[in-house]
């Protein structure tokens, strides 16, 4: 089947699903409530020009913003999910997949391949939080694993940008859970072979994605005010029944507790990656 062309840079997946607004000339900022001219936001890498709130960025937008122009070569783009559980909640899983594909222009939540960042060749993986919340099923696990194996074999540095509110993909049941082990094992081999891995956490990075490849970077960067954690705040709230601390599970919270190396503004991300990669390829 023919590959659908995904959105070009700047087409954003909107806010959280519940707040998704129809495409229009104007949009409201989640961070400061200002009414913004959409074009201004898109030109600014989907960051609010007034309060610096980071809206989500599609995989295509992410790749374009990080890699040297026209250097990205996508791998395994045609890979599609199966339906091993014949899962049907209120809608059969294959139907849900087709709807997501039509809506996002992606075949799955992960895009992998290789490209250059300021002249340094890197293997890149991006999960798009707009595709079933960026959750990891077999395809995301397999694509990332193959990319990591390629990086291991060719001794290339690795950058993975995570954005997943869903963690593991429920619709693929235990297969999804096992992807966590599969990708982590591939990273272990990569690490053992001396590979350098930079993990970039974006809003949101939760559950099985946070509890596998996203947390295993040699260097871990995060965009400002991203939600990052294992259990969702709602689940925690229901369990502990006390007010969650201010800023709980944000990038700033994780930095404070020693779990990430740096918080990096989206506009600075490419520069920071280039600087880091320079240390791995001098």
């Amino acid at each position: 089947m023919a590959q659908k062309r995904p959105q070009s840079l700047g087409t954003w997946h909107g806010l959280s699903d519940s707040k998704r607004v129809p495409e229009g000339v104007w949009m409201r900022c989640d961070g400061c409530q200002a009414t913004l001219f959409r074009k201004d936001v898109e030109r600014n890498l989907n960051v609010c020009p007034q309060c610096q709130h980071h809206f989500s960025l599609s995989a295509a937008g992410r790749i374009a913003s990080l890699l040297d122009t026209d250097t990205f070569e996508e791998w395994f783009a045609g890979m599609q999910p199966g339906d091993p559980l014949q899962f049907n909640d209120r809608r059969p899983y294959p139907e849900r997949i087709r709807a997501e594909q039509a809506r996002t222009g992606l075949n799955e939540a992960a895009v992998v391949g290789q490209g250059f960042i300021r002249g340094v060749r890197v293997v890149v993986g991006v999960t798009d939080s707009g595709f079933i919340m960026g959750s990891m099923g077999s395809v995301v696990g397999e694509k990332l694993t193959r990319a990591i194996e390629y990086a291991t074999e060719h001794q290339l540095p690795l950058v993975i940008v995570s954005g997943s509110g869903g963690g593991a993909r429920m619709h693929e049941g235990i297969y999804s859970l096992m992807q966590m082990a599969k990708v982590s094992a591939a990273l272990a081999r990569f690490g053992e072979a001396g590979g350098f891995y930079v993990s970039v956490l974006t809003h949101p990075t939760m559950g099985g994605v946070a509890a596998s490849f996203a947390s295993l970077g040699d260097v871990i960067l995060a965009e400002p005010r991203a939600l990052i954690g294992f259990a969702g705040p709602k689940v925690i709230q229901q369990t502990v029944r006390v007010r969650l601390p201010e800023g709980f599970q944000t990038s700033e919270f994780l930095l404070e507790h020693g779990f990430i190396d740096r918080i990096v503004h989206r506009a600075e991300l490419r520069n920071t990656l280039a600087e880091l990669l320079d240390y791995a390829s001098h």
Partner: protein
Amino acid sequence: MAATAPKFRLPFEAPIQEMEARLAELEARYATARADLDAGTPEIAEQVRRLRRELAGLVRTVYANLSAWETVQVSRCEHRPQTRDYIPLIFSPFLELHGDRAVGDDRAIVTGLARLGERRIMLVGHQKGKTLAERQACNFGCAHPEGYRKALLKMRLAEKLRIPIVCLIDTPGAYPGIGAEERGQALVIAENLYEMSRIDTPIVCVVIGEGGSGGALGIGVGDRVAMLEYAYYSVISPEGCATILWKGAEHAPRAAAALRMTAREVKRMGIIDDVVPEPPGGAHRDHREAAANLKSYLLRALREIEEQPRHELLKRRYEKFRRIGVFVEADAPTEPLLPTS
């Protein structure tokens, strides 16, 4: 025997319990009749035998036809043997080793040096607790980061001592709490997955009760992975899944079926290597028999691992997880992902 059997409070066991009560009554009558040298004694004895057979048949029938949700209920049954129940039955003498050398000693994961028949092993197992006090101390089997760190530390020790590792999995999930997040719950699980893939000593993992998501997998990477017959293994709890996808925890039975979390299904999907049989009517009916089955499985699994070339251990472990996944490889894309101009 039946007279002293605890009430398991599993709703689908009602007909079994009713028959057990009848049997107990009949056995009491038999005892009285025998003591009184009653002429009807042989006839009562025959009735007892017949009812016992009938009961065994009923237990088999009920347990052969458990729904996914009923299986989940069995796996959570409070009388079901947990790691600390198996220790005296399988792993004695046990030398418990505490603590993660950083934060504390998480009682939701038990670790220590143990014997398995003639062998020396490292035991790592979730503990949910039985009494309310113990349950609270163990957080109902939901480990914190210090539990996963402790597990990893002891597994590294096993590698150094060149003894195999046995992991018994029994958790609803890793603990969802403020402290757990502050201390890096996601990171420690990720690190365990990473490290367990290359700990250079045989690892056998068995889900003995609840295999709840990342909290289960956090001690679940091994050379052999098995499940007890009425255990479950799932990416999310049926209640959690029902809340998200069916908008209400009351749909948990439906979610349990949809997620295909029973041992038979997980085995059929090729995720686990073996299903360890439980005594008729579940492990909670007979801890000894459950332990005997588990022990013989562990011994067999370790023997099988050792029959393979030692230097291939980690390669095989890698491939074991590497091959998991169902997807379709469509034709190569005809257009590049990004506009090339």
